C-alpha cells in the first residue's frame, strides 16, 4: 500500500514506521504468542538447569542450550515489546498537528495513529467508507460504545455515508487534540464518522442520542480504556510520593484524634475509595488557596449531596501524594466523627467539651494534622449538641493559628453562622456548587460499572441520561450528583427485583413515580381514561360550573400530554364567583386528580397578608428558613396552591406572584430559588360577586362578553391590576347555583353521608320529597352550597346521630329519612 493522499490537507503515509510497529505489536501482543513464549522460556530455563545438575548426555546438553538460546531470544522480544512497543510515544504532538491543519497546511497523521487504528486503516484502505465504518463498529472500542447506546452494528449496515474521508480524519484529529491525547484512537475515528455523517447522526438520534451524547459515550469508552490499560513505568505520573516511613516521626502522638476521628489520608492511600474520573481540579485548587497560609481555615458551603466530602477526599489524595503546597504536603487530614464525640457522653456534664479539647490538643501537638468537621454548624449553632458549648472551645484554637481546620456546612446553616462575625471571619469560604450535567453523567458512567456488577444488570447511556433528566425535573430540592446516584442505585435495585436485564428509561420513570407519587411515565390506560373524562370525574364532586370545569380540564390534559411551558407553573387560574359555588371544592378535586391526593394542596388565606410586612411570612425571615409559601413548595413541589380571597392581599404581595406566574420561580429569604413549575396555582376571589349574581339572575348566560364586562369592572374598581390578571392561564367565572343545582348538591351531600353509613353497615334511604324539602330550605343565592351543607347537617345528620345513639343500630339495619323527619 503506497502513500495515500486524501486531499491536499490530510495524508496517511503507509510507509511510516508506525505501521510496521503496529504489526509487530499485533504479533508480539497476541495472547497466543505470549502464552507460548512464556512456556518456552520457563521450560528452557528449567530444562537447562536440570540437565546441568544431572549431567546427562551431550546431546541433551546441546538441546538444552539451544532451548535456552531460544528462551533468551524470547526474553529479548518480551523486553522489547514491554519497554519499547507498549511505551511507544509519537515524536510529534497531536496539538501541533491540529494547529498546522487548522492553518491550512498539509499534515501526515500516520505518526499519531495508535496501533489498532493504524492497522485498521492500512487493512481497509481502498474499501468504501461504509465498509471501513462497519469494520470500526466491530472493534472492541466501538462495540462498547454501541452496546452502551443500546444499538448494534446491523443498525448501520446498508447506510450510505454522506461524508468525505478528509472530514472524517479531520474530526478524528480534532477530537484527539481536544482531549490532549498522544494518539488518534479507534474511538476518535468513530467520532470522525459519526460527527461528519448526518445519516449516522440520524441513526443515533432515533435512539435518542445527539452529538453531545455521542461525545459522552466516547469519553466513557476512553475512561474505561484508561482504567484497564496497564500503567507505564516510564511515566512519572505513575510514580507517587507518600512521604515515606518517617514522615510522622517528627509529629506528636494523636491518641484522642485516632479514637474520635477517621484518618482520611490513610483511607485514600488504602485504595478503599473509588474515585470518579471526574476531578474537580478547580475546586481543589481553591481549597489550596484558602489554606495557603499556615493559620488559615476553610469552610465549604454547599447543599447536602453536592460532594463536599468527596472533594475533601480528593484533596486528601493530593496531600497524601505531595501534590499540593509545601506546608500542606504529607499531612494527615482527620475527620472528627461527631457521632463518636457525643456517644456515651450525655450522662457526664462537660464530657463532650473535654473530648473536643483533648482532640484539639492532639492536633496542635502533632503539628501535621488538618482537621475536617462535616456539618460544622452543629458546633457553632446553639442546640447543635444540646447544651454543649463547643464553639467556645474551638474558637480559641482557630484564632491561635496552631492548627488548620476544614469545615463543611449547608447554605441555611452558613447563613446563621455568618450572622456571628467572630466565627465567620475565621474562615475562608468556598462555595461548592452541584455538578453540571456533563460532570454528573461522567460520575454516573463511572459508577454504572459498580452497579452493573453488583445488581447484574446492564445500564445504557440513555438510562443514565434519563436518570439525570428525571432527577432534575422531579427531585428539585436535592442536589447533584447525590440525587442522581441515589436514583440510579434505586432503579438498579428495582430492575434487579423485577428480574429485568436492562435498566430502561421506562423502569426509571416507574421508580420516580413510586418515589414522588407523581405520574411520570406516559399515562397508562387507566390514567388516560381519567384525563380524557376529567370533566366527568370532577362532576362527581362539583355540581354545575360546566364551563369552568371544561377550561380547567383542558389545561390539565395539555400539561399531561407534555405540551406545557417548562418555565411556568403547570396551570394557573383565577376563580371568580360568589361564596359557596364550588371554587375550593374544584381545587380539592383537581389536587386529587392531578397530584394523587387532596393533601397535595397548599391553602393560603390571603386575608392574612394585608400588610406588606407579611411578605416575610411567605418567603421566610431571618429567624426562619423559608416561609409559608416557599418552605412547603420546596419540600413538595408537586402541589396545588390555593390563594384564597386573593383580592384581600396587599398589592406588593400580589406583585410577588407576578414572578411566580410568569417565571415559575422566586427567591426565598436565603436566596434559594424556589421552583413552582410543577405546581398548579389557583387564586379565588369573591370580587365582582354582586355583578355575577345580578347577571345570572337575569340572563343565565355565561358569555364571553360577560367575562369581559366582569374583568373591566374589576380593573376599573382597582381590585386587580391588568398585569396580574394577564398572568393567569384563565380567569374563570363560577356562576351562582340554581335551585336545580342546589338539589343536586343536596343529593351529593346525602350520597357522602350514605357512604359513611355504609361503612358501618347501615343503609340510608332519603326520599325524593325529603331531598326537595331540604333543597328548598338550603337554597340561598348569597351563600350557595354552604347553606345547603348547613341544612343537611342540621336536619339530616342530627337525625341520623339521634337514631344511631338512641336505637343502638347494628350492621344490616337501615335508616329512612322522609319529609316528616325534617324538624323546624
Amino acid at each position: 500500500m503506497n502513500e495515500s493522499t486524501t486531499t491536499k490537507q490530510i495524508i496517511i503515509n503507509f510507509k511510516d514506521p508506525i505501521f510496521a510497529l503496529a504489526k509487530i505489536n499485533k504479533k508480539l501482543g497476541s495472547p497466543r504468542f505470549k502464552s507460548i513464549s512464556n512456556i518456552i522460556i520457563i521450560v528452557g530455563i528449567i530444562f537447562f538447569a536440570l540437565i546441568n545438575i544431572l549431567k546427562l548426555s551431550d546431546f541433551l546438553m546441546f538441546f538444552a542450550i539451544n532451548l535456552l538460546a531460544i528462551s533468551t531470544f524470547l526474553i529479548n522480544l518480551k523486553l522489547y515489546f514491554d519497554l519499547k512497543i507498549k511505551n511507544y510515544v509519537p515524536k510529534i504532538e497531536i496539538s501541533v498537528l491540529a494547529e498546522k491543519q487548522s492553518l491550512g497546511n498539509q499534515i501526515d497523521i500516520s505518526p499519531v495513529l495508535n496501533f489498532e487504528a493504524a492497522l485498521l486503516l492500512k487493512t481497509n484502505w481502498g474499501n468504501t467508507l461504509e465498509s471501513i465504518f462497519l469494520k470500526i463498529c466491530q472493534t472492541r472500542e466501538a462495540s462498547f460504545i454501541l452496546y452502551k447506546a443500546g444499538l448494534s452494528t446491523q443498525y448501520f449496515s446498508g447506510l450510505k455515508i454522506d461524508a468525505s474521508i478528509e472530514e472524517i480524519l479531520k474530526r478524528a484529529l480534532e477530537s484527539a487534540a481536544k482531549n490532549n491525547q498522544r494518539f488518534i484512537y479507534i474511538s476518535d475515528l468513530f467520532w470522525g464518522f459519526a460527527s461528519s455523517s448526518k445519516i449516522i447522526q440520524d441513526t443515533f438520534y432515533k435512539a435518542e442520542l445527539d452529538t453531545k451524547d455521542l461525545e459522552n459515550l466516547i469519553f466513557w469508552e476512553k475512561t474505561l480504556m484508561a482504567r484497564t490499560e496497564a500503567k507505564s513505568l516510564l511515566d512519572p505520573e505513575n510514580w507517587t510520593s507518600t512521604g515515606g516511613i518517617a514522615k510522622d516521626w517528627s509529629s506528636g502522638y494523636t491518641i484522642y484524634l485516632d479514637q474520635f476521628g477517621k484518618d482520611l489520608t490513610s483511607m485514600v492511600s488504602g485504595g478503599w475509595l473509588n474515585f470518579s474520573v471526574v476531578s474537580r481540579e478547580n475546586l481543589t485548587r481553591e481549597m489550596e488557596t484558602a489554606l495557603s497560609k499556615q493559620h488559615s481555615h476553610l469552610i465549604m458551603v454547599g447543599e447536602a449531596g453536592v460532594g463536599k466530602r468527596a472533594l475533601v477526599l480528593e484533596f486528601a489524595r493530593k496531600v497524601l501524594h505531595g501534590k499540593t503546597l509545601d506546608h500542606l504536603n504529607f499531612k494527615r487530614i482527620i475527620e472528627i466523627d461527631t457521632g463518636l464525640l457525643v456517644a456515651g457522653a450525655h450522662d457526664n456534664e462537660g464530657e463532650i467539651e473535654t473530648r473536643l479539647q483533648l482532640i484539639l490538643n492532639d492536633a496542635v501537638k502533632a503539628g501535621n494534622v488538618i482537621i475536617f468537621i462535616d456539618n460544622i454548624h452543629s458546633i457553632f449553632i446553639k442546640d447543635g449538641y444540646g447544651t454543649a458549648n463547643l464553639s467556645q472551645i474551638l474558637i480559641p484554637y482557630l484564632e491561635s493559628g496552631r492548627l488548620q481546620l476544614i469545615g463543611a456546612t449547608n447554605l441555611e446553616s452558613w447563613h446563621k453562622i455568618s450572622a456571628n462575625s467572630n466565627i465567620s471571619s475565621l474562615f475562608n469560604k468556598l462555595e461548592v456548587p452541584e455538578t453540571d450535567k456533563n460532570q454528573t453523567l461522567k460520575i454516573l458512567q463511572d459508577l454504572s460499572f459498580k452497579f452493573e456488577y453488583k445488581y447484574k444488570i446492564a445500564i445504557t447511556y440513555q438510562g443514565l441520561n434519563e436518570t439525570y433528566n428525571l432527577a432534575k425535573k422531579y427531585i428539585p430540592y436535592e442536589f447533584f450528583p447525590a440525587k442522581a446516584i441515589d436514583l440510579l442505585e434505586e432503579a438498579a435495585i428495582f430492575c434487579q427485583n423485577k428480574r429485568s436485564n436492562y435498566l430502561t428509561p421506562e423502569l426509571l420513570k416507574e421508580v420516580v413515580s413510586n418515589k414522588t407519587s407523581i405520574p411520570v411515565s406516559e399515562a397508562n390506560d387507566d390514567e388516560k381514561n381519567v384525563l380524557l373524562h376529567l370533566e366527568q370525574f370532577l362532576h362527581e364532586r362539583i355540581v354545575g360550573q360546566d364551563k369552568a370545569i371544561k377550561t380547567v380540564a383542558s389545561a390539565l390534559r395539555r400539561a399531561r400530554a407534555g405540551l406545557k411551558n417548562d418555565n411556568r407553573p403547570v396551570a394557573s387560574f383565577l376563580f371568580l364567583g360568589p361564596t359557596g359555588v364550588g371554587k375550593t371544592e374544584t381545587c380539592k378535586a383537581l389536587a386529587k386528580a392531578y397530584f394523587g391526593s387532596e393533601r397535595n394542596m397548599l391553602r393560603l388565606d390571603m386575608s392574612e397578608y394585608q400588610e406588606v410586612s407579611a411578605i416575610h411570612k411567605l418567603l421566610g425571615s431571618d429567624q426562619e428558613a423559608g416561609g409559608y409559601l416557599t418552605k412547603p413548595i420546596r419540600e413538595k413541589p408537586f402541589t396545588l396552591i390555593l390563594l384564597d380571597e386573593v383580592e384581600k392581599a396587599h398589592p406588593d404581595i400580589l406583585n410577588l406572584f407576578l414572578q411566580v406566574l410568569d417565571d415559575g420561580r422566586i427567591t426565598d429569604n436565603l436566596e434559594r430559588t424556589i421552583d413552582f413549575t410543577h405546581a398548579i396555582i389557583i387564586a379565588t376571589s369573591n370580587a365582582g360577586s354582586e355583578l355575577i349574581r345580578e347577571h345570572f339572575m337575569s340572563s343565565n348566560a355565561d358569555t364571553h362578553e360577560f367575562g369581559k364586562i366582569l374583568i373591566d369592572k374589576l380593573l376599573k374598581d382597582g381590585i386587580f391590576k391588568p398585569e396580574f390578571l394577564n398572568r393567569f392561564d384563565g380567569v374563570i367565572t363560577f356562576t351562582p347555583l340554581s335551585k336545580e343545582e342546589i338539589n343536586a348538591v343536596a343529593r351529593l351531600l346525602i350520597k357522602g353521608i350514605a357512604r359513611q353509613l355504609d361503612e358501618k353497615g347501615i343503609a340510608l334511604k332519603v326520599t325524593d320529597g325529603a331531598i326537595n324539602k331540604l333543597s328548598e330550605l338550603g337554597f340561598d343565592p348569597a351563600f350557595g352550597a354552604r347553606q345547603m351543607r348547613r341544612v343537611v347537617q342540621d336536619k339530616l345528620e342530627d337525625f341520623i346521630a339521634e337514631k344511631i345513639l338512641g336505637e343502638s343500630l347494628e350492621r344490616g339495619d337501615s335508616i329512612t329519612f322522609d319529609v316528616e323527619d325534617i324538624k323546624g
Partner: protein
Amino acid sequence: MEGMLAKSLILSLLKWWYFESPKQFLTLAKMIARKIMDSLSISIILRTFFSPWKKVTSYKHNNSLEERVRALEDNAVSRLVGVVMRSAILILAALFIVFYIVTLMLGSIIWIIFPTLPIALAFYSLGFIIS
C-alpha cells in the same frame, strides 16, 4: 512479507536495545532512586534529624531548678532516640543505594551482552555435538 517483518523486527529491536533503551533506563533508574529516597523519607529525616522523637517533650514553667534540669534531660533523651532511629534509616538508605548502584552496574553489563546470548549459546552448544 513475514520475512521482511522479521527482519525489520530484529533491526528495530537491536536499534532500540543499544541506542534508545539506555535513555529509558536512565529515566527509570532516576525514578526508582527517587522512590527509594521518598519511601525512606530521606529529605524529611535530614530536615528533622535532631527533632525530638514523636515530639515528646516536657517543659516545666516556674518550677525548681531540679525539675527544669529533669525536663532538659527528658528532652535530650527524646532527641537522642530520634537521632538513633533516623540514623538507622540513613544507614539502611546507604546500604540500599550501594546495593542499587551495584545492581545497576551489573544490570548494565548483562543488558549489553544479553542480545548476543542466543547466538553465543547456539555456538557453544555446537561444542557438545562436535565433541
